Every structure is written in structure tokens, then in C-alpha cells.
């Protein structure tokens, strides 16, 4: 059996094709505007509260890499990025539709879409730290390590 898995079109794929047809031997440009670094600016961190609409183990078309949480808030639905490891491994975040949650993170525009980069999730009386203060994903090993250290503490990664 064989199959062909065509990767989702890259952000610039369509533009690139057009450019190559029109202007040969020109470096590929015309990328959509993206926010400048730092990727995660903790000074812009905000807290969102709402209820879980759905949890996506892998991104839908157009979403950024990793798992996502669709959050219903008073001002509408928010695409919240949980990163690659939040739902993976021991001590993974476990949420179901309708659950009330409190998210801490930074709202960013990526791929022309608003996405909430989640750093912490407060749910079920626990705080799950999804990313570090620089926006770097916390690994399942980190959860295992910290859960050993803070079994009595009530906070888990």
C-alpha cells in the first residue's frame, strides 16, 4: 500500500508560484506581515476566562503547529494554542467541552489570524503551565519531574 501525503500549502506557496511565473530568478518574498519578536512578550500577558468549546489534538487547516483549545468567551470564540506537548505524556492537560477554564497568555496575529498563545491553564482547581515565561513549550518530562517535586503543592505543569 502506498499513499501520498501532500503537505498543507505553506503560507507562501501560492504567492511563490505566482512570483516564479512572473519574475524568474527573483528571491521569494511577499510574506504576510507577522509580528516581530519576541515571540512571547510576557509584558503583554492577559487572562481569559470562558468555557471549553472543543479541544483539538492537532491543528485544523490554517492553525499554527500543535494542539488547540477553542474557548468560548463573553466576546466570542478564541483559538488558543496549547503547543506541541500540552496534551502529550504523563500529566497531560485533560479538558472536555463545557469545562470552565482560565487561560493566561498573549494574543498574537499569526498567519493572518488571531491566536492566543497559552502559557498557563487553570482548570479543575489546578494550574497547568504549558509554556515557560519565554513562550517555550514545557515538555512532558518537565511535568513528571515537577510533579515529583510538588506532589503536595497543588500546582502542576
Amino acid at each position, binding site marked *: 500500500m502506498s499513499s501520498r*501525503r501532500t503537505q498543507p*500549502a505553506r503560507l*507562501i506557496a501560492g504567492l511563490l508560484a505566482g512570483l516564479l511565473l512572473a519574475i524568474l530568478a527573483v528571491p521569494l*518574498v511577499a510574506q504576510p506581515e*507577522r509580528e516581530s519578536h519576541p515571540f512571547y512578550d510576557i509584558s503583554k500577558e492577559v487572562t481569559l476566562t470562558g468555557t471549553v468549546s472543543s479541544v483539538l489534538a492537532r491543528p485544523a487547516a490554517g492553525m499554527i503547529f*500543535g494542539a488547540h483549545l477553542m474557548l468560548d468567551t463573553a466576546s466570542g470564540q478564541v483559538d488558543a494554542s496549547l503547543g506541541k506537548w500540552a496534551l502529550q505524556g504523563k500529566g497531560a492537560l485533560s479538558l472536555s467541552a463545557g469545562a470552565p477554564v482560565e487561560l493566561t497568555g498573549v494574543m498574537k496575529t499569526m498567519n493572518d489570524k488571531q491566536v492566543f498563545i497559552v502559557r498557563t491553564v487553570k482548570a479543575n482547581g489546578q494550574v497547568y503551565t504549558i509554556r515557560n515565561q519565554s513562550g*517555550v513549550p514545557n515538555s512532558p*518530562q518537565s511535568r513528571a519531574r515537577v510533579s515529583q517535586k510538588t506532589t503536595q503543592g497543588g500546582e502542576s505543569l
Partner: protein
Amino acid sequence: MNRKPYLSISAFTLVCLTMGLLTSCTIGSKKSSSTAPAAIAATSPAGGTESAAVGATYGALSATVTDGSGAGVSGVSVVFAVVNGASGASASFATGGTTDTETTNSSGVATTSQALTAGTVAGTLTVTATASGASIPPATFTLTNTASAPATLTATSGQGQSATVSTAFANPLIATVTDANSNPVQGVSVTFTAPASGASGTFANGTATETDTTDVNGNATSSAFTANSTAGGPYNVVASSTGLTSVNFAETNTTVVVSGPSNNYVFYASGEEAINAGPNYYAVAGAVTIDANGNILGGEQDYNDAFGITATDTISAVNGALVAVDASAGLYTLTITTTDVNLGTINTAPGVEEFVVQFVNSSHALITQFDGSATSSGSLDLQTTTSASNGSYAFTAAGVDNNTSGNYASVAIGGVVTANSGGLSGVYDIIDAGTGTTVVSTGNTITAGATLSGTDTYGRGTLTGSGMITASSVFAFYVVGPATGSQALRIIDMDANDVAIGSAYGQGSATFTNATFPTPTAASGVLTLLGQWSEDYATLGEFTADSTNGTFSGGAADDNELDNSVQMEADSISGSTYNLVGTAANGYGTMAITWGTAGPNVSAVNVYMVDPALNINDPNNTTSTDVGGALLLDLDVALPGGVGVITPQTDTTVADFNGTYVAGFQNFNEFNTNCFACEFDMISQGTMTTGAALSLTGADSDPFGTWDGTAAESAGDTFTSTPLSVSSGFYSMSVGNNPENPIDATINTFEFDMDSDIYQASATTLYWLEIDSNGVFLGPIVAQGSLTGVPLARKPGGQTQPQPNKNIKPNKGLGVRLH
């Protein structure tokens, strides 16, 4: 004495009448009979069998004579006669003779009155009891002379043998236990013990000692005895048994027959392990001695995942081999046996690792672990010296810190240091996401008193007390070469709480300035960055330096930050700045990358210059045009763990990208929902025909099942495309091109399209990067040179062949299948 065999009827009648009994008389419990003997039977001991140790006395023998009604017949003369056994077993009566004649009593029983003594020979004999004057078959007693107490232990067989190291001796060891009369003694425990160290061997139980029990012949026979990896001897395997004098079996372990010189090869790799509840980050570095036939003669290895496996292991000759899969293409497998039983274990025995090796030339190869326990990318290089030189080195290393706050997160270091007679000084930078946030610290000073050890026969040494990553971190290093001039070292952090792996390259006597960037003879370069674990990303681009202003007067780069969803292709990096003047050390510099389009987080990169005569990718290949350049450390807080290189750009002519190449990459992807950012690795060999086609065939290691959910290692995988030359030094392979030309990959029967770009440093060194949003890879494409001098395929015999990796799947019959 002679007696009448039995009474006459008249006499018997007279006796009865005298007693007033007219019709019958009783003798004992049975009636006496007036009839003639009809049978004689051995009645004591029961069954007529008895045993006695040689020289001991048997119990009395009794035979009963009966008449036709079964009544005992008294007064019958019975002759007991010894008949020697076939083995020579004998016995004799007290008189020294072999017969004893007795008369049946009133119950018809005749019992020997003379003691019967067993002879000196063990075995079975018989004694017959014959009723005199009666034509009836004799009764038979079966007697067994048994051996007496064990008296002697003898080395009977298996002594004086020779076997090649790591192979079984032809014959087992047999020790025999006998008594004082040389009779074999059965059921005696005999323990065989081989030397605990040095030249020795092991039994089937895997240890140097084994206890066996003697059989009927007195023989205790060992299981197969296998020479260990140390040549030498004769040495004694001691056979011992309680109360007996031990005996020795003198054995010899012979060296492997080497038909040519042996060489050391240094390997290192990093990636993700599937064992130890992985995926975890891991790194491995080591050195092995390989003879001209591909036999592994020994080695050592450092393995660290900072998550429970941190071990420096000996590599033995047992089952080790460099085996040619396709010698003409330079494709081999390398199997090594370590002393850490936690390693391997998936498709290989505990402690056994397997790598697939693709030689670029006789002194350099790309490798990836290929046994299902882990996957990684790295290299294997001929070791041309085992001594580390004094002088200044540029270095970088990347890995994972699991120390400070318990975050198992990426860390990377880089700097410029000076080795001086066992001491180390210098400056280093670090970016560490293992501390709760991402911490960047530059211009740190190596802790005073840092110590470099000397190197052993495998070119391995250690660095302690440097203060890099943590105060307690200990680094191991392996010297690669070249034999003269500045050297390359592989370095690995062996702290149980953090791991990092990388290289150090000598800087020689060069004075580095902005005018010599990236080399004194090349103003252009190709730069790479690869980060894994916390952030999976890669950056690849080209630039031309303007030394007057310390800027890039031109340049473009790709940037694929998988976790940050940044996929930037051929974006301008013109205007980026660099500085090597007035910095912390000679050859220590900074770089600020600015992009034509906002998005990429790659910005702050530090630079550590390498001797312009030293080849970063292939250290022993100093005649290449690809010498010199720099090491890079990404210091952006959003991208911890990224390191890379600058290779001078000396040839961007499309027509020169032509010939036979070796290519590899390290890929991180989300193809498998259950394993985000999991890794697979590829190495391959093939051709690039200018303006026509790139065609590669290779092997892929995918222990996490990123392709289809099933872990596999496959060979014969193909990668083809028609790279589109877009601009000088830049090629595009994409579904966005017209006609579309992504890499058409067939991996383990599955087909993938991968958008990828190539940047050309020279005709012999290029790099490629995957630019998809659900996968990223980076790797080299390097011209394949002469393979003369690569060890031959290991020949059958001499050593045990490695076991096939049963998990390797054929690939549509397209190409070779490993093993």
C-alpha cells in the same frame, strides 16, 4: 561340608509317626512336603537385588526351596555362586572363594553364612543359588558394586583449547570424579570457574562460573564456553569439587585475524530516544577500533539523556561489526556492544546499538542510530590522532537542561577557550530554557581551575570544573584529528541532570577580524541553525559580508520555526550586522540578523571562528575548498537550543552541482498525531545531474512511527526532485513551483511530498532545509569522494555475526534491505 539334599520319604514318615501325627506334620508356618523340590527363589534381600560400595560387605543372601505345592523343602543343599559382571565387577565370600553351600532349614530357606564382600570394580554382578540334585533353574541375585567416596577430580576433556576472542571454544570442559579405585562417581557437583578479569570466558549462563553434576560416567560437562573479548592466555578455568583437589583447564583466547591495519573511528550523534519512556532527548559519542575486515576490536562510549541514563561504557568486540550493505555506495551498518544493558533492547539485545553509516569518503561518514531504540543524526570520522593539542578552540554544544528548576528543556552553549597543559580558560555563552524561563547569558568566564585530563587510547578525555551549564557538569571529549594542525574534538556533557553535545575546533594562529569573515579568502558564506526539543526549527541562508561596515551586503535565508509557525523562504537578510572586533576573545563575535519580512525570531546569534585551514564538516579533509568558517549559537529567547555553522561560499555555479552526493537530514514533524515534534532521520547517496534530477536512495530511522504510526527502520527509500535554481546559490523544491517539484520521498512504502530548499556553499558542500508547516529538517548534501580505505565488509566466521534487525521493512523491493 556335605549334607544330604533332603530326607527320604520313609524317614520323614517315621518322624511323624513318632510324634503321633498320622496325617500331617507342620514345619514352621508351612506345611512340610514330602515331594521333591520344584523351585528355588531369591527371597532375601527383597527382589534379589542389593548394592554395596566397592570393598564393603553385602548382606546375607537367602534362597527358598519349595515343592510343587509351594511348601518349603527342608534339608536341601543350596550352592550360592558368584558370577562376575561384564564390567569386571566381582565379589568373594569370606573364604576367598566364589561359592558358599548352605542347607535349607525347616522352612526351605538357605542363607549364606559366609560374608560376601564387593570387589574393587564398580558394576553389576550376579550370584546364583542352585538346589543340588534338583533339575530346577537356579535363583539369581543381582548385586551392584557401587563406587565409594569421591577421591579424585580429573580434567578429562576440553583443556588446552584456543578460540578467537568472543567466540565459543570447540569443545565443552569435562571434569571426571572417581573414587579411590578409579570408579566414576555419579551425582557429584563440580564447579567450573574462569578468571574474573582479563583473558577469560563465559558459560551459557553469561557468567564466568557454572556448576554441573557428574553423570553415570563420573563426568561433569560444562555448557559452551565462550572466550571473552580479551586476547591472552593460557589462563586456567578451575574445576573444583568439595573435598577434592581442583584441576585446571588451560585455555587461550586468540586475537581476531586481522588482514590489514585497524583504525579508530570517532562517532557522535544526537536525537530522540524511544527507550526510557521516551521520546527523550539523548546524545551519544564514542570511539571504536575497526580492523580492515570490519571487526570491532573495542572502544568506549558516552551516552546521556539526562533522564535516567548517563553512562560511560566499554565497547566490546562481542558481536561488533561494520558490515557493508552496499560497499560501492558506501552504505554500512555499525553494530556495537556496550556494557549498558539499558541501551538497545528494541530490535537488538540489551546493550547493543546499531547505526547505519553512509561514508562520504574513507575518513568521514554520516550516521543515524538504526535499532529502534533511538534515532539521531551525527557523523563518524577516522581518528587520526588521540592526543589533544594545546591552543584555542571554538566550540558549541546543545542539549537539554533538567537541572535547576526541573524543566527538561533545551540548553546550548558556545564560546572560545584555550587549552593549556591540562588547564582550560576562556569565555562562553549560554541559553538555557531549563530554568523556568529562557535565560541568556553571554561573556561568561570559564571557572578558574577547570581541568582537562589527558586522553586514553581512544582519544577520550574529560573536562571538569568549567562551570558551563552547571558547576558540576563534566564533559567528555574525543579527539578526531587531523594529525597535524588545528584539531576537531567531539564534546558531550555527561552530567546526569543535563546533556549537551557538540564539537570544538581549533582556531590555529589566525587573527580574526571583520575582514576575514567568514574566511580570509571568502567574503560569502552559507549559515545554518538547527534547534531541537523545546523548539524545533531550522534556519538556512547565504550572505556576503561587507567588512568595511560589518554588515551583510546581500543575503537571503529560509527560516522554519515549527513550534512558532514561522515558515519564511528566501527572505532577505541583507543589512544584518556582525562584529569580531574588540570582543571577548579572538574569534569571538556577534551577529544581529535582520529579516526583510517580519516574522522569524532568529536575530541574536553569536559567532565563534574556526581555523581557516580546518574543515568543520570533515575535519580530516583539509584539502577541501570548504575549510574554515565558524560555529553559531542562537541566543534568541524564543529559540533555545539552536546551534549551527558557517561554511564559506566559494562556488554557486549551477553546473558544478553535479555528480555523486551523500545527503542526510534530521526531521521533526507532526505527521503522527500521537507524537508531536517527534523525529526521524535519513541518510542517503545518489546523484545530481545538472539541470535534470536529484536522485537519492537511503535509509530512514523512525522509531516513533512518524510516517504511519508504526515504528520502523527502512532502507531503499528514495528521494527525487528537479531542484529549481531560483537565484545564485539557491534552489527551490516546492509544490508551489510551476511545475511543482517538491521532494518526492518514498519512505517505507509511503510517499511524501516535502517542500525544501537548497543553499550551495560549493560544488562539494550544500545544505537543505524543509520548509513545510508540519515538518522541518536540516542537513548536508556533500560530494562523495573516494571510498578506498573504508573497511571491507566483515567476512563470515571468526566472530559471531550480528543478529539481523527484524524490524527493518523492505521498501517495495526498490533497493537494498539492510542485513
